[in-house]
């Protein structure tokens, strides 16, 4: 469709005129401006909702909201065209078959071997081995090898040595969705463990010998403690209500040596509404501070984030400080349980704070344990009541921790944002379906590519320059500050206002420091080389030859500038009273914005998504780009890096 306008959310005056294209996998807007032909690409999988607004004099507005929080406002001149686009997008954004998804047509031009290697990058067996299992307390069980016991669990589960197949099967019958207690994390220093399950089908008075034995087995697997914690992550009221439906929670009287604890985290419906409300605040035009703070408070979002964090902290403390094992569950054990177990693991084990470790963590607690990616994130068209930002909340917890402990994580904010992006993008096969069983049936590994391989290849972009594995902040358990600490939770504008470049700090400290680090490393290597040469020459000198000592040219190297000082940033509209303040001519604004276009020379990155001439605008890419690796330019999650690319190396 031609003559479509793409509006800028913050500045109502700025609108780009161009052509709108719909393909099988993307919506693409290409600007008419001939020099740049800026493109905005949106994957259908990312589309969360489409809203057709009332026709105005200028045309028919269409609002596309994405799962990665991008909001695209288009104005289509003809009402009929707008309607066609609307209907098409509705269909395209709601696939009915997996084969319609992008991952089945995405082709990064790798051969079969490379594809397989990509999938084997993250291996959970290796991970449990790293934890020290199997050992005298824990073993691997193949009782679920054909998914016969629990179809949402993986084929390989880790259980206490004293848990026989009989006990496992019996326990699974007493658990919602048959999700019996299984190992999530084992601390080899003190044998304490984190296990996870779903709620017991205890009703008001039902008991199950095998389930009680299962919990005993978990306790026995930790000789250092004579009890275990059982943590129900639901609000007490909800858990009690479940009893009426024949489910519920563990009665301390029936299970020997357990200490039961509720840590109330709200359910998926509350979270879905919370996010919705928060996004409405983000969409306010020129909100006052009051509007914003009130809106944020009303959404309850940060309160929920803190609740998840508090639960994770409780469990981490139990394991690290008390040396007590914990069994965690919620209702079905695949949402709040996953969040809480992975937060706890992250706090406990520095490995999960590395790039590789984080991928392993998600593979373990989310992918293998049957988090319902399809239902939660809408790979396919489904029940809207199943949609909920569960993993988004976990990712935000990680970000909040990164803000509190800037030296403790090997990865940076961009890594988290890209992971979140791809959970929704369906460009890779890792986050499809609802369980390992379904993924294997669909032969995902043979037909799609692994995100982990892609991220790993580009890990240079995802590193935190302040991370040092030997830093005191990095080692050991993280202790997030407990009360009073409400103020420590910040609104994550990097995620929820990701595509509004004007909001973010204009200069990226992370990228600058990474560049400094790399340069320092290069210099150190050169220094070593020169040092060796010097040593050799000195040896010659000893033999009586007169040789001038090498002079190291230090000064020339550092032409490093923190920012390209020829780039200006533009003032926003500071006055509410627009009439009183004369508007700037549009050309002035455009000049500056075009000055923000990065040239390939300025950027030092191995990211194939990074296109030359990509603009600050989101998901924008140049058709003519070529990645450094020579492969085809991938439609990127955003322009590869975020706004603040005023970094340039001289």
């Amino acid at each position, binding site marked *: 469709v031609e003559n479509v306008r793409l509006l800028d959310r*913050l500045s109502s005056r700025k609108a780009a005129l161009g052509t709108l294209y719909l393909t099988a996998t993307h919506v693409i807007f290409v600007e008419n401006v001939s020099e740049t032909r800026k493109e905005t690409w949106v994957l259908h999988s990312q589309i969360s909702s489409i809203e057709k607004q009332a026709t105005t004099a200028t045309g028919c507005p269409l609002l596309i909201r994405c799962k990665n929080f991008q909001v695209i406002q288009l104005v289509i001149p003809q009402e009929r065209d707008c309607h066609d686009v609307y209907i098409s997008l509705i269909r395209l954004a709601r696939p009915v078959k997996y084969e319609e998804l992008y991952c089945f047509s995405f082709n990064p031009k790798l051969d079969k071997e490379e594809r397989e290697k990509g999938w084997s990058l993250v291996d959970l067996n290796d991970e449990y081995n790293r934890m020290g299992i199997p050992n005298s307390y824990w073993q691997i069980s193949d009782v679920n090898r054909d998914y016969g016991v629990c179809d949402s669990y993986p084929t390989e589960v880790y259980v206490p040595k004293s848990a026989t197949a009989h006990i496992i099967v019996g326990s699974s019958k007493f658990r919602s969705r048959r999700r019996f207690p299984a190992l999530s994390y084992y601390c080899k220093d003190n044998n304490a463990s984190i296990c996870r399950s779903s709620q017991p089908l205890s009703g008001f008075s039902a008991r199950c010998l095998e389930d009680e034995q299962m919990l005993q087995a978990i306790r026995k697997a930790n000789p250092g403690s004579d009890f275990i914690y059982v943590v129900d992550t639901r609000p007490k009221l909800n858990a009690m209500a479940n009893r009426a439906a024949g489910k519920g929670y563990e009665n301390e009287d029936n299970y020997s040596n357990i200490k039961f604890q509720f840590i109330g985290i709200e359910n998926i419906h509350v979270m879905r509404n919370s996010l919705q409300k928060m996004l409405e605040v983000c969409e306010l035009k020129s*909100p*006052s*501070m*009051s509007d*914003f*703070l*009130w809106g*944020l*408070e009303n959404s*309850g979002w*940060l*309160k929920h984030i803190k609740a998840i964090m508090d639960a994770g902290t409780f469990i981490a403390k139990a394991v690290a400080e008390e040396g007590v094992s914990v069994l965690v569950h919620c209702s079905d054990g695949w949402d709040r349980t996953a969040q809480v177990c992975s937060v706890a693991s992250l706090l406990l084990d520095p490995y999960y704070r590395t790039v590789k470790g984080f991928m392993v963590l998600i593979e373990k607690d989310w992918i293998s344990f049957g988090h319902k990616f399809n239902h939660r994130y809408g790979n396919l068209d489904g029940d809207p009541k199943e949609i909920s930002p569960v993993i988004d909340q976990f990712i935000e917890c990680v970000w909040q921790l990164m803000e*509190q*402990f*800037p*030296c403790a994580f090997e990865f940076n904010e961009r890594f988290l944002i890209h992971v979140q992006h791809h959970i929704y993008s369906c460009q890779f096969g890792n986050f499809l379906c609802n369980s390992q069983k379904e993924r294997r049936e669909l032969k995902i590994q043979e037909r799609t590519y692994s995100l982990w391989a892609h991220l790993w290849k580009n890990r240079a972009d995802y590193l935190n*320059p*302040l991370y*040092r594995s030997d*830093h*005191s*902040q990095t080692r050991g358990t993280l202790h997030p*500050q407990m*009360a*009073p600490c*409400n*103020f*420590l*939770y*910040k609104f994550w*504008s990097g995620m929820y206002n990701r595509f509004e470049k*004007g*909001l*973010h*700090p*204009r*200069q990226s*400290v992370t990228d*600058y*420091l990474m560049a*400094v680090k790399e340069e*320092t490393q290069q210099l150190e290597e050169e220094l070593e080389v020169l040092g060796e040469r010097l040593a050799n020459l000195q040896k010659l000198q000893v033999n009586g030859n007169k040789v001038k000592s090498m002079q190291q040219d230090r000064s020339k190297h550092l032409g490093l*500038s*923190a*920012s390209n*000082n020829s780039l*200006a*940033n*533009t*003032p*926003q509209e*500071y*006055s509410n*009273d627009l009439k*009183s*303040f*004369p508007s*700037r001519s549009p050309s*002035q604004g455009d000049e500056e914005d075009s000055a923000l276009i990065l040239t390939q020379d300025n950027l030092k990155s191995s990211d194939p998504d990074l296109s030359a001439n990509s603009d600050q605008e989101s998901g924008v890419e140049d058709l003519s780009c070529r990645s450094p690796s020579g492969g085809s330019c991938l439609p990127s999650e955003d322009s590869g890096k975020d706004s603040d690319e005023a970094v340039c190396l001289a």
Partner: protein
Amino acid sequence: MLRSGQPLTGPNRKRCHEDEMLLGSVLEERERGFVIDTRSAQAAKQARMTGGGTEPKSSYPQWKRLHQPLERGRPLQESFIKLVEACNDASLGMDRWLARLESCRWLSHVKAALSTACLAAQCVDREQASVLVHGAEGTDTTLLVTALAQVILDPACRTLAGFQGLLEREWIQAGHPFHLRCARSAYSHARLKQEAPLFLLFLDCVWQLSRQFPFSLEFGEGLLLTLFDNAYASNYGTFLCNNEKERCLCKVKESTHSLWAWLDQPEEKKKYLNPLYSPNPLAIWPSVEPQSIQLWQGLFFRWIRSSQYLDEAWAEMRRLVE
């Protein structure tokens, strides 16, 4: 950029030939200037009743007046006190924190101050127009705006030396009554009538700028905290008294030491330098969207929670850059 006090037009719309000539001389013929009045239109009008007022269009035809009300005086002090109370309230749950923060209105004041300073800066930089800033007395919000606008516009004001010069010029010599304004701070029970944290508001705005432009200021948060401390209680005479006249009468220069002299010593100076600093010759235009304005944790939670991890991060940054 000019600053002054309000014109004393009074209820009878007095005129002053010399004042009109003075302002007229600033502008070329047919050039236009802006007057940014930091009072609301209504407050400015009411000021006439007590002898003050605004520049009437008829007498100052080349000047266009913009009202950008900024909080000052008792309400600003109350805002400050409430915020400090909220920060110290350990019983406050997460479900009520933001509402409490909002009710203090401090962040709204930061947003308003930054917006007004940006507007003044835009007049000069974008519209190439002269701007006159005044409130009532010209000693509080006026100075906040002009000083902040210069940090936004002028890279020299963002250097350590330049910033000190800015403070000396736009706050101290311009006659901000430090003695009255920075008396007891937030914990005092004595609610002094003249006390108001304008200077703190300025420092907070500068901190916001440093957060949005981490490479553009030569100094770091430490300097801002030190300035905050010294404005209220100091070993040095720099912030004493209310104006130059009083300082002369009290013989401040003869009997005390200068804060700037102390800060300029090499061992002290390096504590306050920003390791990421890289001179930026351009104006820095902050975003004043609510998401971009954050609570200055380094100040308001300074004594409540450990800054250990952040300090370690800064130490690591210094190490990397050095």
